[in-house]
């Protein structure tokens, strides 16, 4: 039950103090791949050193002035100084320059003297006072960090030395001005390595980055290193310390919830506008609370894809919770994190924060190892693409991102570029992994005479298994069926000679040889498309409001796509298939007032039509037994509630929660049963259903018994109370009679003798309407 925020503090502080230890895998060039022999520690050094020096040379003595006592500023100075200094270290010189005069100005103002008395002994060390500033304190430099060492240079005699120098100069002056060079010689021949000095350390870093691995000819491939690195590696101890064994942390059975006897599912609920988060067992009668915490998350929560972890969001980073008591399992410090994504295998976590990125240390997107909690790699985020920016292959072996004209595929666990290079695909618009195999689908739009193209590529071989050319394309959307059996490319086209947009559904049958493609054309506006998760049907919502229709298609084995059924006049804008297929909920969310239609697609019957007024979300439980519709406070401010329905559309519960925000079902890992076993169960379903029905009856009668029992006791209490009140009432009868002049008014007709007959006439207007005219 630890508060995530409290726990996160020490780690964050620690990380700031020793950045090198925490992030050993930081690589400066994000898109370069991790080739080359250089160790990770070495690269860090390249990234930092030059900046520090530049800083020092331009602003000597800055850090001293920022110290509080000398500036005579009292408490405000250290913060201003710290801010300025840290900004400066990040390379932002402008703001640092601004901050400095401000500090001085304040110091000059007429203020009471804050100077220390003469006998004052300072008992606070500077390290304690401004450790974070001192960390960036300028260090002495002697200029050797502008020097690089180049190995594998051809060994030549004096006759060819001049020529070699020319060649070297030509290659290396690309990165900056070479101020000095040295070619060590032995027995009249160069030794095969040389030293070059640049005008600035930045040039040296640049040279190392770009010229390392340069192929001069077949025999000579340059190895370029910073001279200072030699120093560093010389000081490394030869003795290897056995790393301390980490004590094994027993987190208990993280999948305990799957062992529940009733096979109930769990879900998380955020309510009170995000202040409280609860986990419930879903139960037909009433949800059973498992855990409720205040301020568990600062924004929202996410379940991992197999349901093992619950991720909560905090200003400082992400915390993962799990196990029976929802203890904290792991935390990832990423300031200002906004979005996360799990790898499908639950091994890696991708986090995004807009705050942390710096030029030489990519931190906008970080990939973490969930088991160890270590950062695997950081990335820049240049373009504002849709989240997730990195898309994972189904097994978590690869992940890919798209940038301008480039598709970069990385592999785990090295986090390096697959085959060390990205794919150049000019004009690539979108890509998507198959959920059933390591196949990537991407499309490029038309470019003058070259048609638009959808390509399926096998990985890691990069073999193109299918290319489909398309004409007059406006837009494409890639929709994979959940098993990866089919891919539907929804193509919006403007065919020549026609007005308006026509939509083609290009259905790729992935499991067949050569991947045959069939097309369904639709002239109406497409509102939504969705595949049946475990099947070969798909549903399309089309038309213009209020004339919206839903069509169900079936992809047959021979490739024929058959329209099974079309329902018109639907009030729907979203399709929600049951995770098990067959059943589907068509929902008219938000502007369509929350109309719901429950459809069984096996025989295409509408099982129920219902409404959850103003519903904003529909969530199927992972087993496909229940559906939850909800009105989230995030989209609508009143009537925030979630309703539980059966898959047939029978309303089971209305759960009103104050300022309810979000309900998420806990996902289940894929079943361990084989196809045969599932078939067998389906065959024996009658046997099981008998058992279940009996169980249901038992629990139902128990429930109604409980209810009746409760009502009985309430009624008993109430009767007692009423008897007491009636006795009191009877006691007062005489008083009442007295007050009303002896007239008994206890019953409506108790003073019937006093009644006066009164005849009241009412006006009745008569109007004759001939019936014939009505039609």
């Amino acid at each position, binding site marked *: 039950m630890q508060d995530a925020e409290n726990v996160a503090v020490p780690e964050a502080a620690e990380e700031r103090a020793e950045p090198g230890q925490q992030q050993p895998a930081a690589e400066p060039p994000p898109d370069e791949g991790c080739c080359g022999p250089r160790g990770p520690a070495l690269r860090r050094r390249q990234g930092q050193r030059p900046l520090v020096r530049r800083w020092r040379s331009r602003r000597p003595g800055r850090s001293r002035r920022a110290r509080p006592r000398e500036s005579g500023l009292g408490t405000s100075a250290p913060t201003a100084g710290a801010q300025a200094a840290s900004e400066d270290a990040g390379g932002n010189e402008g703001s640092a320059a601004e901050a400095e005069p401000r500090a001085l100005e304040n110091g000059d103002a007429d203020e009471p003297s804050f100077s220390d008395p003469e006998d004052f002994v300072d008992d606070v060390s500077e390290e304690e006072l401004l450790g974070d500033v001192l960390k960036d304190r300028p260090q002495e430099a002697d200029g050797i960090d502008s020097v690089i060492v180049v190995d594998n240079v051809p060994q030549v005699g004096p006759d060819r030395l001049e020529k070699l120098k020319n060649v070297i100069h030509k290659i290396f002056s690309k990165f900056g001005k070479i101020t000095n060079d040295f070619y060590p010689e032995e027995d009249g021949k160069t030794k095969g390595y040389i030293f070059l000095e640049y005008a600035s350390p930045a040039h040296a870093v640049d040279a190392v980055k770009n010229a390392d691995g340069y192929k001069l000819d077949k025999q000579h491939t340059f190895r370029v290193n910073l001279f200072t690195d030699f120093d560093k590696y010389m000081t490394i101890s030869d003795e290897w310390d056995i790393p301390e064994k980490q004590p094994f942390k027993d987190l208990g059975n993280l999948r305990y919830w799957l062992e529940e006897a009733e096979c109930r599912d769990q879900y998380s609920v955020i309510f009170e506008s995000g202040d409280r988060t609860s986990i419930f067992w879903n139960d037909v009668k009433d949800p059973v609370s498992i855990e409720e915490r205040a301020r568990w998350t600062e924004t929202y929560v996410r379940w991992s894809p197999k349901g093992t972890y619950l991720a909560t969001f905090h200003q400082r980073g992400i915390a993962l919770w799990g196990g029976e008591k929802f203890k904290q399992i792991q935390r990832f410090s990423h300031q200002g994190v906004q979005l996360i994504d799990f790898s499908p295998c639950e091994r890696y976590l991708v986090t995004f924060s807009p705050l942390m990125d710096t030029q030489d240390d990519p931190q906008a997107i970080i990939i973490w190892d969930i088991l160890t909690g270590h950062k695997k790699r950081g990335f820049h985020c240049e373009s504002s693409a849709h989240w997730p920016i990195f898309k994972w292959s189904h097994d978590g072996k690869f992940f890919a991102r798209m940038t301008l004209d480039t598709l970069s595929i990385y592999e785990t666990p090295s986090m390096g570029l697959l085959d060390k290079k990205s794919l150049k695909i000019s004009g690539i618009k979108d890509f998507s992994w198959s959920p059933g195999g390591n196949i990537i689908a991407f499309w490029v739009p038309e470019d003058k005479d070259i048609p638009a193209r959808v390509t399926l590529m096998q990985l890691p071989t990069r073999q193109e298994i299918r290319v489909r050319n398309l004409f007059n394309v406006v837009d494409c959307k890639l929709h994979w069926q959940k098993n990866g059996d089919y891919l539907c490319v929804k193509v919006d086209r403007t065919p020549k000679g026609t007005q308006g947009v026509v939509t083609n559904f290009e259905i790729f049958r992935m499991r067949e040889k050569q991947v045959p493609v069939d097309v369904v054309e639709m002239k109406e506006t497409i509102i939504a498309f969705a595949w049946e998760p475990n099947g070969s049907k798909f549903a399309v919502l089309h038309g213009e409001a209020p004339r919206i229709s839903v069509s169900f298609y079936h992809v047959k084995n021979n490739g024929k796509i058959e329209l099974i059924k079309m329902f018109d006049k639907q009030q729907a804008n979203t399709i929600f298939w049951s995770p098990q297929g067959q059943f589907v909920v068509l929902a008219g969310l938000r502007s369509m007032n929350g109309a719901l239609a429950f459809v069984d697609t096996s025989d295409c019957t509408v099982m129920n039509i219902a409404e959850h007024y103003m519903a904003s979300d529909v969530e199927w439980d992972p087993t496909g037994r229940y559906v939850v519709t909800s009105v989230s406070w995030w989209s609508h401010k009143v009537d925030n509630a979630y309703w539980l329905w059966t898959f047939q559309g029978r309303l089971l519960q209305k759960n009103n929660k104050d300022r309810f925000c979000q309900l998420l079902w806990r996902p289940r890992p894929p079943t361990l049963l084989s196809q045969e076993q599932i078939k067998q169960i389906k065959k024996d379903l009658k046997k099981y259903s008998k058992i279940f029905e009996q169980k249901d009856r038992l629990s139902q009668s128990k429930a109604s018994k409980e209810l009746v029992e409760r009502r009985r006791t309430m009624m008993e209490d109430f009767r007692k109370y009423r008897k007491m009140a009636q006795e009191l009432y009877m006691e007062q009868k005489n008083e*009442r009679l007295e007050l*009303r002049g002896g007239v008994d008014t206890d019953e*409506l007709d108790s003073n019937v003798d006093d009644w006066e007959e009164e005849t*009241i006439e009412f006006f009745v207007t008569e109007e004759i309407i001939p019936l014939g005219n009505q039609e």
Partner: protein
Amino acid sequence: MKPILLQGHERSITQIKYNREGDLLFTVAKDPIVNVWYSVNGERLGTYMGHTGAVWCVDADWDTKHVLTGSADNSCRLWDCETGKQLALLKTNSAVRTCGFDFGGNIIMFSTDKQMGYQCFVSFFDLRDPSQIDNNEPYMKIPCNDSKITSAVWGPLGECIIAGHESGELNQYSAKLFDSTTLEHQKTFRTERPVNSAALSPNYDHVVLGGGQEAMDVTTTSTRIGKFEARFFHLAFEEEFGRVKGHFGPINSVAFHPDGKSYSSGGEDGYVRIHYFDPQYFEFEFEA
């Protein structure tokens, strides 16, 4: 059950009340008219004209001789029920919020708002002493210093009054049932909308609540979302068993007919609706 719609007010209804026998229904609204209707068919029997401001409250005595109304025109008026003649005009310093006859019909009580620099007072007049009315001098006046009275009723035998205050603990979102002699909290009926009025059935263990989305928010919400429904709860189980739709504004006042066979509701929409229950209502029973 098709309701009888009473259209006699131009502004929102503030209070409705049956007389003891239930043959008449008195309605007051934020217009100056006081209406009286036959509850059996909704025909208007007459009006009591004289007020010049919104009328907040109405009451009739036990034998329906007199009618008492309190208004925002700073007056409380006593009428002859049958002729509609104004019998007394009691001037006050601020709006009259609530009024009532005692059990015997001899003593009247009304409370005034804390308004325009005047205190909130509860005044008592004895109708048997005409001089009190002539001089506009109540025989008793209770000042109420802290927060104003929004609602007041006589105790069972006129030995006390029970007042609800603006700062009262009464939860706006629920109706609570209190024992009238001991003031003990008995039951709570929960709704998701503010409750403005509640009434007990005289012969069934039922309570009806009227309310809905606050009037000031109504223009921004549709009727479906406002939930302007009369809601029926079981008195002992606190369970809801029925709703009656119809108003397109929040319900300000509900009242059961003394025979329990019908009830009426008056809403912010200016309509009064008399509903006669269907047979199913009387057959319905909770399993217990």
